[in-house]
């Protein structure tokens, strides 16, 4: 049942994204993308609720759950911050990322077919996992806003102003503000997540996960510090937001 909910959610996001792209191509705003994404979000909630109940813990125990939780977090931030943008268009850019994460989660071997009940859960471990993955949702959305900026910047620079996409993209200044705010929010959540990670009981073994997490966190802190202190062109900020997010995904390779 849980798997079907995730498949259903993936299909909803895919349909919302495709319909949104077609609207944008025609030069009109895709008013229904937010509705499709909200439906996908409900379905994601259903999946996570069932997995959480089966695990008797936060459903972050296998790679599939982590990817699904990440997609849920991304959708959550899109729905929460969307009104600051032209909602539907951010959805058009977010939907493909959600589809990619959830399709990856559905690949054979990623989701435990029979999720086992977690034994001896620790509140700090749960907090660490939940906040860290939640932060990745905000950081992923910052990357999405960054991609939107890069597209708009290219069109403005090259004077390609005829497309429906150009007409529907939010202004440069709004995109940069949103990228910065999402980076701050994501970094704050990541800081709390990592702090919780230091407080949870550790069982020796490899430090690769810790090193990758701290390196990602340091990268984001450095980016925000440089941007606040010295300023940064929109292109560099956006490229950094996208690049850092992709690099930071390596953290999950060591979970």
């Amino acid at each position, binding site marked *: 049942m849980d798997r079907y909910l995730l498949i259903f959610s993936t299909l909803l996001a895919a349909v919302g994204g495709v319909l949104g792209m077609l609207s944008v191509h025609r030069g009109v705003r895709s008013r229904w993308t937010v509705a499709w994404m909200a439906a996908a979000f409900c379905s994601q909630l259903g999946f996570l609720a069932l997995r959480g109940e089966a695990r008797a813990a936060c459903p972050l125990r296998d790679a599939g759950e982590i990817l699904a939780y990440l997609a849920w977090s991304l959708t959550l931030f899109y729905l929460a911050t969307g009104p600051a943008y032209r909602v539907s268009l951010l959805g058009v850019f977010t939907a493909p990322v959600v589809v990619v994460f959830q399709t990856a989660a559905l690949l054979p071997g990623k989701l435990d077919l029979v999720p086992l009940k977690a034994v001896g859960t620790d509140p700090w471990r749960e907090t660490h996992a939940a906040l860290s993955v939640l932060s990745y949702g905000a950081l992923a959305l910052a990357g999405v806003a960054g991609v939107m900026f890069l597209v708009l910047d290219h069109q*403005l620079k090259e*004077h390609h102003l005829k497309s429906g996409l150009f007409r529907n*993209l939010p*202004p440069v200044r709004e995109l*940069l503000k949103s990228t910065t705010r999402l980076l701050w929010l994501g970094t704050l959540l990541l800081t709390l997540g990592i702090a919780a990670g230091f407080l949870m009981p550790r069982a020796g073994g490899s430090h690769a996960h810790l090193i990758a997490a701290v390196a990602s966190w340091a990268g984001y802190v450095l980016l925000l510090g440089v941007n606040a202190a010295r300023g940064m*062109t*929109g292109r*560099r900020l956006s490229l950094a937001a996208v690049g850092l997010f992709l690099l930071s995904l390596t953290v999950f390779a060591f979970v």
Partner: protein
Amino acid sequence: MELACLGLNHRTAPVEVRERFAVGTPKLGEASHELLALAGMGEGVVVSTCNRTEFYLAAENAEQGLRELERSLAERHGLTPEVADHFYRFTRIDAAEHLCRVVSGLDSMVLGETEIFGQVKQAYHAALHASATGGVLNRLFQRAFGVGKKVRTETRIQEGATSIGNVAVDLAEKIFGHLEHSEVMILGAGEMSRLTAQALVSRGARSIFVTNRSYERAVDLAEAMGGSAVRFDEWQKVLERVDVVISSTGAPHALVHRADVEKVRRARKFRPLFFIDIAVPRDIDPAVGEIEEVYLYDIDTLESLAEEARVRRQRQIDECERIITAELAKLNLPGT
């Protein structure tokens, strides 16, 4: 009752003829009511803007109503046969169709412009309050407004800016969003700069700085626009704070070089900067546009964007007229 329309506009009459028949906005109701005094006239609405004056009538006989109106205009405004040639006449369904074209902006100087919709509405309300309208014209105007809205929502007749000033403003909004947090600098106190800056101010741009080789002219323009004048040798300092630069000097060579902008980038914290160069020869070195956060548009680019929008609007005319014909066929208006 039959519908009729007598009018003249920017295409049929020069301004010296149009101004003789123009009716001020406060007098539109009174002028509409006066039409009722003509023989056989049941209802009347006078529409008058800077580009047109039109009389819409509901008379017992459309042709006779037009003749009565022309006789009255000849008495009051000296409508000679030569001047009468500037007028167009429509009766019955053609009059209804003409009104729909007017409210849809198809008959406007700037194709698809929206201001005419409000102006016709204002004229109709003035006639309504003056009790100059009845069943025929009330239905005609209300339906025409409906058709006008349909044309604007279902076609792209009002899409895109058709003047250099409006293209520049649209681009500024695409970069900065609401312009109330944006500051503008004008290099050169020419007419084009003034018009473009005014368009930006009308959309909320906050501060205007004007610089010109002649400081007195900069002061005059700054006062007229509620801005501040800057001495010509100090414009680089202002560049640190502004978001938009409009340049239109008569200088024979580029005034703004890449190095000028490079110098202030750090002080600006690399914020986006929009240069509008409407001077010929160009005031801004094209190399300035290579800087990452700079968006540079010269007069040719702006004009080609305006021209593209005009062509796009032209292509919409057939579609608009198809909607008007179809809607009128469905409405079965009285007097047509």
